[in-house]
């Protein structure tokens, strides 16, 4: 865009070029930018969603393993199992009198 500058008794001095802001262009650009940011965040969101989902699964698995180990431990140390094993090894309850040499 050209703008003429007039000074002193309406005498023409010079002509300068001025840029006019194209608002439509700015609007489209900002929409694209916002959409891009939105899309990036959405992708991040999905990634985090997957991560949370995986973390939840892991937590569930760990609790499950913990409970399974507790169960196994108490099964192995249960008096029934121990007494059965003791019988296999031929162990007997101690006598009332124990002679200490």
């Amino acid at each position, binding site marked *: 865009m050209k703008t003429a500058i007039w000074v002193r008794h309406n005498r023409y001095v010079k002509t300068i070029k001025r840029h006019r802001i194209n608002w439509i262009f700015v609007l489209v650009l900002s929409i694209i930018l916002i959409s891009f940011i*939105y899309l990036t965040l959405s992708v991040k969101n999905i990634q985090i969603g997957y991560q949370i*989902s995986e973390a939840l699964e892991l937590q569930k698995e760990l*609790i499950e393993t913990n*409970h399974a180990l507790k*169960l196994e431990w*108490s*099964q192995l140390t*249960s*008096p029934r199992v121990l007494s059965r094993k003791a019988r296999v090894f031929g162990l007997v309850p101690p006598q*009332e009198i124990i002679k200490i040499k």
Partner: protein
Amino acid sequence: MEIKTRIILILGLLAAIGSTILWQAFRLQVLNQTKKGEVLKFSLPPKRGIIYDRNGEVLAITLSAPSVYACPCQIEDPYKTAIFLSKALHLKSKILLKRLKSGKNFVWIKRWVSDRELKRIRGRELKGIGIQRENRRYYPNGPLAGQVLGFVGFDGYGLEGVERQFDNYLRGRSGYYYGIKDARGKIIISPKFPFRPAEDGYNLFLTLDHRIQYAVEEALARVIKKWHAKAGYAVIIEPHTGEVLALANYPRFNPNNFRRARAKDYRNHVITDTFEPGSTFKPILAAAALDRGVLKPYDIIYAENGRYRIDDAIIHDVKPFKWLSAQQVIVHSSNIGAVKIGEILGKKAFYEYIKRFGFGQKTGIDLGGESKGLLRPVRTWKRVDAATICFGQGISVTALQLATAYAAIANGGKLIRPFVVKRIVDNKGKIVKVFKPKIRNRVISERTAKRLREILREVVLEGTGKMAEIDGYEIAGKTGTAQKPKNGYYQRNKAIASFVGFFPANNPKVVIAIIIDEPCPIRYGGIVAAPAFREVALDIIWKWHLSPCISPIEMTRILQSKQVAKKE
């Protein structure tokens, strides 16, 4: 075409493609996401709390177990599927076929399948058949304290015992989250929507000691096998606090197989079933007479030489006695002597003390289904009724009531509330609730309680309870043999043998009640139940490392003399 025009055309085309992609992304990400159908709500089931014994040993725990389901509308050949499933899961093919042909969207085929069954199902891909993991309760010690723990149903609700009574604490609260399922079936949790994690149930710490519980159950099983008895019950209480250390029933019940059990198998007979206590009730009469001051331990009573008529009924003694002191009446378990003490005391006073000892009312234990027992109002007592109640016939009590009454004698006269849950703890170990011992009321004075302890000690030293004695540990207790009633008459050959006692007599640590139902051929409490008491008491001594009440030298002397006598 000019280059400029070509460039403009290519740029325009690129812009069109770009904007289409952008529009599509915008439509998928922004417009479609707001539609409700895309975002699904998923529930997060909580883990049921763990039940521990007093030492932190696991008694009940939850793990996930696989269950097989079917979508009948998706099954192509129900006949083939039914035959395969019936073989793999050991189910009846007829029932299976009916389920598979139901046309429903979802039916359960078998819940909580074993690993072997799961392998068989996984080995072959069947359309419309799936596997889902569900929470399952496991009891690692099998039938140990089965009737106390109870069990949990398929829906995760406690149905019996502690599991039912404390279900609100154990169950926890389920959580939820919103998410989208991707093409591979993976769930993407959306942080934009609310998320509530599941709150696992609280853990319970019981007063039971699983080692003592095991010892009691084993001793009970041995006695029942030896004497061909119908059933047996035992309860062990800490007399000063009311903590129940063991509560055993025989036949046992395995909560892992609750599906096959009948109601009578998982009923806690110690608190629900009543029986006539027989001679184990005589100390209650003695306590009343001594506490009222109507009688002293050495007052003499005539025992009528084993035969005493009251109205139309004749009361007998096992052995005929002539003159007995009040103490000897209890020591030798004389029925006639007990009736005479009752006559001196008076039925109203006796009734008052029976009530004070907690008979005819619930003990208040933190388990469901407790029975009150049967105690008729004193105004309905005839002379014969008042007489028979003196030796424990004509009144019904639970094993727990009897143990609680003896605990009052053991702890100096205070009636305590028995309890099985000690504390409730959350999954981070923070204490949520603590159950403290509760004294219900004072029953007798400390002096009377001390005298009674001495009398009960004499029962084991000189009287009917000799087989319960453990050298150096001052066992005190009372035997009981009560005939069982049927159609208004007492049966001659069917009885309940019992022994209730505590040790050491001067400072009791535990009260043990052993009840054996219908032992055969011998039915006396002193022969059937007293040795079982001894066995259990010995086990507690070993486990708690209790030292004898006498000096080691004295103890060695007693044991050596016994060994010499054995050799001779």
